[in-house]
């Protein structure tokens, strides 16, 4: 008798836990739904083509996001161009070439730690290292060293100041650990029999990596790269430290241009008390979410279509 009661109580516990599970899981879904609905509710009316193609303004009805949108494109392109080769290279070295030594162990632990550093700290690093270059070239912007002329695309000024180049490099620091870790996971998923096969046929280690391992790992690497780029698009704290909230009335023309980025423009508008600004902040969020959804969509597509089982 006692036994059957204990079974009853265990079954009851099982049922109760299942209900707790359903509630907890639904919380996440409900929150996501409320978030998206509330943002569309607030921002749909003020969203228009004119909103995307006009510059900032003191009047919310005339303000637009062209400058921050193009700023985001510039900064994220620079970030990707530096972070992806550097991150993938590091991961290849750690996974395919490095011998297990104290040095590799330190590098690995260090990368995990870098992934946990708050992004605002990277902003301070970017401000000191890229924007001011540790003060080694003086602090006055006017007597900075310049390379090339201002008309050209690769005009350089040292120190970089709060330019798109400094912004892109700062974001690069933020996403670098993410790129490295996801690439390492993609490389680890390639079965070692493929490598052994190539080596047995007389390929050198690098030929094995370039011809066999990398092509097999490319879908995983690309998924990780796209997800880290979508992180870069949404990251705003480090660039806030770097340049503050700038009102920019032109799109970047060279590497030294001032810039605004979309998330910071959202922060700027969301932080004001008037409802009109909240509305256009919500409109800007809709654009931002569309860009992110596009990126995540590509990542999901790659994962579903290109990833063929290798084992």
């Amino acid at each position, binding site marked *: 008798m006692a036994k059957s009661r204990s079974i009853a109580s265990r079954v009851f516990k099982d049922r109760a836990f299942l209900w707790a599970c359903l509630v907890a*899981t639904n919380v996440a879904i409900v929150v996501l739904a409320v978030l998206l609905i509330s943002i569309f509710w607030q921002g749909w009316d003020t969203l228009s083509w004119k909103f995307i193609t006009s510059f900032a303004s003191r009047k919310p009805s005339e303000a637009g996001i062209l400058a921050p949108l193009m700023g985001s494109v510039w900064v994220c392109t620079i970030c990707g161009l530096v972070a992806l080769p550097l991150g993938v290279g590091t991961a290849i070295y750690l996974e395919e070439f490095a011998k297990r030594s104290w040095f590799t162990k330190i590098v690995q*632990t260090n990368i995990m730690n870098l992934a946990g550093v708050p992004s605002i700290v990277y902003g301070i690093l970017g401000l000191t290292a890229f924007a001011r270059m540790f003060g080694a070239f003086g602090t006055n912007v006017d007597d900075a060293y310049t390379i090339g002329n201002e008309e050209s695309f690769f005009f350089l000024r040292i120190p970089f100041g709060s330019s798109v180049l400094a912004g892109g490099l700062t974001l690069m620091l933020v996403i670098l650990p993410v790129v490295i870790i996801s690439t390492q996971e993609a490389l680890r998923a390639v079965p070692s029999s493929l490598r052994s096969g190539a080596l047995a046929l007389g390929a050198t280690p690098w030929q094995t990596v370039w011809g066999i391992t990398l092509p097999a790992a490319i879908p995983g690497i690309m998924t990780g790269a796209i997800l880290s780029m979508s992180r870069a698009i949404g990251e705003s704290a480090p660039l*806030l430290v770097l340049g503050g909230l700038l009102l920019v009335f032109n799109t970047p023309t060279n590497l030294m241009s001032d810039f605004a980025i979309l998330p910071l423009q959202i922060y700027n508008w969301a932080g004001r008390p008037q409802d009109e600004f909240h509305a256009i902040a919500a409109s800007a969020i809709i654009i931002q979410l569309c860009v992110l959804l596009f990126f995540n969509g590509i990542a999901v597509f790659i994962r579903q279509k290109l990833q063929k089982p290798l084992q």
Partner: protein
Amino acid sequence: MTSPSTSSDAPLCDLTQLGRPKSVSARTWRERLIVGTLAIAATFSIFVTTTIVVVLARETIGFFEFPDVSLVEFFTGLEWNPLLGAEKHFGIWPLVSGTLLVTVIAASFALPVGLISAIYLSEYASPRVRAILKPGLEILAGIPTVVYGFFALTVITPLLQKANPFLETFGGGDAPIAFGNYNAMAAGLATGIMILPIVCSLSEDALRAVPRSLRDGAFALGGTRFDVSVKVVLPAALSGIVAAFLLAISRAVGETMIVALAAGGIAQITANPSAEVQTMTAYMVQIFLGDAPATGVEYKSSYAVAATLFVMTFVITMIGQWVLRRFREEYD
């Protein structure tokens, strides 16, 4: 050496197309050059960490050299008001307390909900349900934090304020509970929503890594699904789950945009979730957006705050890695 097993029908790559250099020594040199370049790339991450430490240390030392700043006050002082008042006080505790309050609120929402969702996804859900829930969580994970800040400000806070008349009737006393336009609760909840996907997906990874045989054994002994998942699988995955929790907490500690938008700007020591608090990150935002001169003591104080933040998150991350290494259960 075992013979290479080819699984797919077509070879992945034709080795004759790889473009061989003519001589063996040229090939060796090319090889060394490439590996050397890759090694330099790998060293870059060490360089980044070193620079962070050096920059923070240098500027923090500069901060403590100011006459009205003392190391003792910084670590024991209960007042932080560099921007107002005639007498400036630099005691870090109000900022730490604000950060902890927001983090505790976030964690007490996200850790249980995230863990239970993870157990559901890993042990209960059918593949069809997973196929719907996982992308939902991924979307939640990809939303920029500034959006959560906006959500806290325009949705969560007004909702909390609906409870104000009720709270005023029953609460009261010395510290009345009524939600203002900025409060720790809204910021904490939004931060909790932000870290929820991290808790959930990392815990789920840990749970799924537990071998099937353990579950089969527990079921064979007559365990219910609850017994199996909570009494067998959960303890086996505990190290991974604790590491996931710690990672999520360190994210909450370092979160900036949500608290800058929704938590307010008063640095005070309080456990009242309806109060306005300032976190370490929000203070840094205030300084870098403000017009404090770059050589002044207020400006330099943000570096000392950043160093404190860096040390806190570093310690949390290290504990997480230690837990993973030390308490990992190996089943093979």
